[in-house]
């Protein structure tokens, strides 16, 4: 007993020492590290912000590439390791903070390739563009409102409404994505109408759309319809702008319109819109660029630096943008971004997984993704088969139609890096270890108790009492006992439990000179069963009668097995059928034939799906755990009884935990739920 205790305590201590030596973190921080110890990428809250585009066909794309660590500068590795956990989606508040930081110190943001300055008057338009660009289509309305309020005092309200409608239609087209061929068609149309005037361009486009795009499978009907509406509005807007024919329905008056045109010219609106549109197009094409909205203070700083001449600024924003681009490109050529790009220039991004952004992570978990409710709502991407020690970079993109947008990482960047390394402890199983240690301790304590008090009370199990009776019946009738060990292998616990019962049955059979037949499903189980029976006969001093016992292999096909056993039942007419172990579809085929022959049948299995068949066709059934209790129950060995009592105590503990968990969960405390997750 002491040896057992020592071995047990040694094993438990070993596990805990291992746990603490490995310095693992609690599971809440390192959830579910994979078997190879790869870092999980975290993609926390905020995904719902993109649900709307996702519902319209948008996708989330996970891409990755490996970077050889030895080629990467040390400082970079340190920094990347520090920010391993990738926060792909962040709250609106956090996004705003990042934007403010970018605006305040643009030099700290190396991924800004293009920056447009916008005076206060155009802030609304800039916000709309920024929302377009970042994919936050939900924010476009805010931009439109700002645009509306800043323009109201300068222009015609009707025209303002038209422009706002144009923006909204554009947003809807962007949301819709246009279908697979949309971008190509758009490009084709632009080339064809490049040299045409505005009105001709509109006509040509309308004609082109109606003859080529309507009804096509690879072009979205929604986008086509929206574009036609957009064209109609653009024509009206163009008519007003070019002093052309005013549509009677709009009922514009000359006076306010003239004032409006003056206002537009004064403000250089057309220049802004033209440049902003071109910029938006380029940004969309290049995916990685960022848009920063400038402020007056920033302009003042730029002016004081004298790097951009004021004349250019007064002219309009287009030239300013061009100048600034060169300046920033020069500035960024020395930044860390350049270093990264140089090292990884030849490594291509590989697709890890692509799925609809409207996917329900909880119910339809994509294969590379795991959803957990612990802490903040988060999505975890778990990666397999990666090489230890090699640095990997990851990024998440949102795709809408042909457009792709990189998702921001926790630090505002678009990528995150991680170096996989093997773990010495599976932190996600810490709760399992604690439960195993606790239950093990309880069982050991009861073993100790059983040694001091061997006459422990054990509840009556009718099925196990019937085993002895059924053997007695077979002896009295002078017929065979049929013992089936199920279709499990020797590594399956139900088969081991069945082997334990077989040992008792064989001893009883040997004692009473009753014939025993054991048809086996698995050759290894057959070999073990032969040894068990032989030992039992030896123990009873009846080794000469071993020929009474037949242990033989039948088949590893359940139906062939059932057919053979049924044949044995019908030909040899055994008096008793004991079916103990793991059973599949052959269970009913055998037990029903046994019942039809009037055999006394005792069954026991761990397979819940077979239990109803056993209960209806056999005389006694050992349900689930009773199968495992058989060895202790039949032998009345004090150690085994102690184990059984410990098991019952463990069950009591589980019941208490379940009741406690139910109460706590009802009251809103999910501590137990989280522990068992």
């Amino acid at each position: 007993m002491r040896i057992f205790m020592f071995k047990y305590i040694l094993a438990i201590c070993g596990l805990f020492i291992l746990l603490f030596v490995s310095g693992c973190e609690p599971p809440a921080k390192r959830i579910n590290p994979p078997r190879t110890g790869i870092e999980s990428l975290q993609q926390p809250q905020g995904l719902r912000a993109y649900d709307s585009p996702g519902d319209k066909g948008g996708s989330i794309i996970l891409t990755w590439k490996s970077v050889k660590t030895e080629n990467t500068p040390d400082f970079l590795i340190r920094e990347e390791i520090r920010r391993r956990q990738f926060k792909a989606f962040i709250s609106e508040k956090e996004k705003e903070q990042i934007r403010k930081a970018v605006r305040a110190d643009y030099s700290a943001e190396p991924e800004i390739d293009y920056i447009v300055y916008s005076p206060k008057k155009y802030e609304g338009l800039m916000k709309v563009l920024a929302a377009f660009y970042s994919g936050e289509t939900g924010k476009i309305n805010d931009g439109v409102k700002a645009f509306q309020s800043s323009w109201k005092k300068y222009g015609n309200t009707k025209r303002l409404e038209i422009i706002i409608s144009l923006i909204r239609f554009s947003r809807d087209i962007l949301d819709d994505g246009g279908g697979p061929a949309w971008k190509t068609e758009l490009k084709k149309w632009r080339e064809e109408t490049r040299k045409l005037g505005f009105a001709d361009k509109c006509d040509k486009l309308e004609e082109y759309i109606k003859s080529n795009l309507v009804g096509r499978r690879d072009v979205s009907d929604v986008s086509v319809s929206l574009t036609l509406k957009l064209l109609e509005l653009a024509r009206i807007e163009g008519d007003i702008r070019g002093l052309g024919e005013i549509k009677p329905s709009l009922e514009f008056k000359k006076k306010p319109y003239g004032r409006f045109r003056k206002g537009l010219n004064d403000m250089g609106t057309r220049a802004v819109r033209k440049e902003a549109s071109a910029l938006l197009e380029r940004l969309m094409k290049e995916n990685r660029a960022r848009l920063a909205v400038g402020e007056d203070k920033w302009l003042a700083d730029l002016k004081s630096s004298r790097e951009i001449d004021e004349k250019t600024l007064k002219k309009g924003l287009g030239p300013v943008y061009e100048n600034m681009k060169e300046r920033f490109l020069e500035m960024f050529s020395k930044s860390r971004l350049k270093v990264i790009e140089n090292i990884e220039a030849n490594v291509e991004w590989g697709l890890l997984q692509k799925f609809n952004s409207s996917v329900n992570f909880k119910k339809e978990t994509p294969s590379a993704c795991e959803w957990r409710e612990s802490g903040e709502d988060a999505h975890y991407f778990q990666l397999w088969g990666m090489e230890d020690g090699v640095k990997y970079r990851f990024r998440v993109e949102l795709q809408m139609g042909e457009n792709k947008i990189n998702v921001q990482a926790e630090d505002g960047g678009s990528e995150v890096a991680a170096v996989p390394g093997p773990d010495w402890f599976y932190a996600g199983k810490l709760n399992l270890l604690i439960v195993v240690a606790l239950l093990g301790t309880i069982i050991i304590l009861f073993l100790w108790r059983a040694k001091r008090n061997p006459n422990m009370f054990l509840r009556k199990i009718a099925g196990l009492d019937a085993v002895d009776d059924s053997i007695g019946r077979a002896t009295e009738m002078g017929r065979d006992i049929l013992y089936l060990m199920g279709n499990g292998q020797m590594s399956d616990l139900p088969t081991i439990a069945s082997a334990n019962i077989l040992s008792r049955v064989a001893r009883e059979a040997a004692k009473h000179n009753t014939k025993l037949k054991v048809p086996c499903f698995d050759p290894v189980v057959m070999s073990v069963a032969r040894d068990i029976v032989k030992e039992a006969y030896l123990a009873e001093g009846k080794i000469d009668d071993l020929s009474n016992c037949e242990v033989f292999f039948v088949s590893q096909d359940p139906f062939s097995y059932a057919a053979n056993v049924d044949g044995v039942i019908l030909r040899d007419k055994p008096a008793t059928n004991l079916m103990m172990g793991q059973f599949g579809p052959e269970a009913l085929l055998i037990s029903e034939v046994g019942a039809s022959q009037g055999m006394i049948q005792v069954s026991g299995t761990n397979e819940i799906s077979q239990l109803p068949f056993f209960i209806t066709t056999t005389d006694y059934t050992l349900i689930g755990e009773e199968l495992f209790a058989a060895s202790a129950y039949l032998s009345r060995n004090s150690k085994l009884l102690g184990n059984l009592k410990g098991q019952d105590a463990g069950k009591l503990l589980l019941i208490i935990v379940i009741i406690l968990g139910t109460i706590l969960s009802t009251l809103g405390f999910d501590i137990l739920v989280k522990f068992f997750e």
Partner: protein
Amino acid sequence: MRFFRTILPIIFCFVTGAFACLLSFIPHPAVQEPTNMLNDWAIVITTFSVVLAVQSFVSRHTKSIASRKPGWGYSAVTMVTLTGAAFIGIFWGKGPGTPMGWVYEHMITPLSSTVYCLSVFFIASAAYKAFRVRSSGATLLLITGLIVMLGQIPFGAMISGGFIPLVKDWILEVPNMSAQRGILLGLALAMFATSLKILLGIERTYLGKGD
């Protein structure tokens, strides 16, 4: 002798069992590699066990034929099919398009399906036994069984305006599921306790040693 028959297997069982237990908590390759090796060993041992199976199979059926036991004809058929299948498999290989493929498709599969189809009749017979009203428990079982069966078919929904399928779902998802989970919890605990007693050498019956 006792050392080899009892102590050595118990030590071996403890060492390999404790190692396997550790494996589930340690994902490090240094530990996982030996696991793969142990798994390979198991596959090798299983392959050799086929020899044992054939030996047992042939021995039993040849004895049956030789002693003209009742039903020895079946044994003869079994021996012929065993020899024939082995012959076809060894000389023409296996897989689709081979004679063995034909045997599998046109003999083994229909025969298995035939035996499996017997389950239908056996299920009906078992249901009859279960639903005989002999006690209050059996009556309850009969009523529950009727509701579940009616809930599974469109007729049940038709006569009850969709109520019976709802009751069926509730029966399956609440009382049935809770009972199943209770059994599963007990099973898990029993398996854990059994593993522990085997690991610690308390349970030795499977070695044929008894108490």
